[in-house]
């Protein structure tokens, strides 16, 4: 996080060293491929209602829910945990808001009530995860798996098994509206990511989460309140997932109990990993998670834009991701470095014994 005031070249070098650098490269390459197919791909025009429109804008909008859950997941992963329940929390949040809005008047007030309900419900689900992990002491994988399985069932109960649709202009605006010509969802997601980024780095939260993730026992003995922090992190992850659920359902004003948020926990985990946060916990990188989320959205959009056939889609995505992970892998990078350096430079950091 040390600010690079030494000029653009240094800043660029610093960026290259970051793990998520390769995520940015991958996004650029995908955009390039699209550009080859259609030279107008990157064009952003003023749309029918005076807003910006274009493929890039679509990507940003599609990335928004993934950014939210990736940010939450990033914090959970930093503590050495994992949250498999985000997809299910999304569908429950969607179900709650749709069921409420279905019978509520189409007013701004209803939107806020719906959002309040979403916060309450998703925080409650996050709290269940938090209690299971921090108080009961279950493994995060198991605890959140419980909510993952139960959550979708809960959503079905809430909607009575239906894919409930509703109308509410304000609620719909959250996912489809624009501010300053940019999609509201993206701005909100970015706001959350920047806010969380500042919060964890400006306060001591980041240090404490990392300490817990790296060595829970040592952190506890150093007086870190592991229990309360874990509890908070899971609740926070739940609320972010709830909002992601709002984004997803508000987009079409329908909650699809079997599809909304389905397997999105995997996207979130992937985004976090692409961003350079180790699943083993410890050092984490919010910016990286955002880059990862944007990459996933770009990938999804590219598949459709190129017209890759449905059956080849998973393979296409897998190849891109595997290639990216290879580029990020320390070992592969070392091979590249050694080739480039051709014996002139020594590895920068070694286990040096105190002299």
């Amino acid at each position, binding site marked *: 996080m040390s600010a690079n005031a030494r000029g653009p070249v240094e800043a660029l070098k610093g960026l290259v060293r970051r793990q998520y650098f390769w995520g940015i490269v991958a996004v650029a390459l995908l955009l390039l491929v699209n550009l080859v197919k259609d030279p107008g791909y990157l064009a952003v025009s003023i749309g029918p209602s005076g807003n910006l429109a274009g493929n890039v804008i679509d990507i940003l909008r599609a990335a928004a829910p993934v950014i939210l859950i990736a940010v939450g997941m990033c914090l959970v992963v930093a503590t050495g945990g994992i949250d498999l329940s985000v997809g299910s929390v999304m569908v429950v949040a969607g179900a709650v808001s749709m069921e409420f809005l279905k019978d509520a008047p189409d007013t701004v007030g209803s939107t806020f009530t719906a959002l309040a309900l979403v916060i309450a419900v998703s925080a409650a689900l996050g709290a269940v995860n938090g209690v299971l992990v921090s108080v*009961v002491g279950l493994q995060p994988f198991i605890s959140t798996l419980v909510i993952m399985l139960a959550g979708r069932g809960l959503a079905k109960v809430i909607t009575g*098994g239906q894919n409930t649709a509703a109308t509410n202009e304000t609620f719909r605006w959250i996912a489809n509206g624009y501010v300053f010509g940019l999609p509201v969802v993206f701005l909100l997601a970015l706001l959350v990511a920047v806010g969380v980024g500042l919060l964890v780095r400006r306060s001591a939260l980041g240090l404490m989460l990392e300490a817990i993730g790296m060595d829970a026992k040592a952190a506890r003995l150093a007086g870190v309140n592991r229990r309360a922090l874990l509890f908070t992190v899971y609740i926070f992850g739940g609320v972010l997932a709830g909002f992601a659920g709002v984004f997803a359902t508000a987009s*079409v004003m*329908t909650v*699809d109990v079997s*599809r909304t948020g389905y397997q999105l926990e995997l996207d979130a985990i992937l985004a976090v990993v692409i961003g350079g946060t180790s699943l083993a916990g410890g050092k984490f990188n919010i910016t990286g998670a955002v880059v990862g989320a944007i990459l996933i959205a770009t990938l999804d959009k590219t598949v459709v834009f190129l*017209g890759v056939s449905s059956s080849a889609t998973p393979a296409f995505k897998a190849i891109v991701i595997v290639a990216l992970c290879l580029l990020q892998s320390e070992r592969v990078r070392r091979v590249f470095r050694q080739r480039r350096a051709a014996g002139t430079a020594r590895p920068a950091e070694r286990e040096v014994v105190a002299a």
Partner: protein
Amino acid sequence: MSAKQRIVQGLGLATAGALALGLTACGGGEGGDDDGLTTIGFVAVGPEGAWREANEANIQDTFTEDAGYELKYAPATNLDQKSQIDAFTSFVDEGVDVILLSATEATGWEDSLKRAQEAEIPVILLDRGIEPDDTDLYVTRIAPDNIEVSTAVADWAVSAFPDGANYFVLEGPAGVSVVNERNEGFDAVVGGQPSLVKVGAQTANWSTEEAKGVVETVLKSNNNDVQFIFAQNDEMGLGAVQAVQEAGLTPGVDVKIATIDGTKNALTALAAGELSFVAEYNPLFGETTLEVVEQVLNGDDVESSIVVPSATFDSPEAAETALPDRKF
């Protein structure tokens, strides 16, 4: 570690408990023959979506005691085939008169069906087929025909676009038999029309939200030059409607959208002119099933495959007429 074991044990206990409850429920009907009722065992799929709900509710509403039947409804737990096989086996052991089966998975039914055959219990497949499709193992399969339904969409498309059109297909998950059949029926007709040009096909996993995202990009990559979208289910069609609207086009005018299933939501959209054609995949086959069961019990021969007739709706007016009676 031990916590994990505890969970697993807990789940195991819960399952055992559920099974025990199920068994006692089944056991209660031993004396079915005494009160003159015909016992039907229904190995069902359970909660899966609106279509399935309508389908199974319809079966349950048909085989009532007033009609002279006792229906034992056994939905699968979490779409798990094992729970279906268990239910099937206990129906055989109990000696019900007829078994109705909607299999969650197509394969792995040979042994169970043979047991039923040995016990001389006729088995009727509802909706879902089995693999390998050995017609000796069951009496008949009652289902709407995906190929027939998608052919209806294709026929409508051909007549709706006499001057030709660019079209895009929103598919279900790749590799699923329903998707293959719906493609097959549609392509057989449309493939012979050079004026209908396919600009692409993508899965949107039956989801409204994903369909919206896909169509949004498809419209951009084709500069909005798409006149027809075939959505293989209603939900995806409704997503396409929204994407078309977001792009500043008018669904039903600039882009016509046809869907399959015929849910209430889709007919509402059709009535509003947002969708242009809805082909029903009829879930209501209680009546047909009742007739077949009676024939089987009388010892009559039945066809090994019975198609449930499905309706199509091609205008807002047709949708409005149908809407008040829609069950799903």
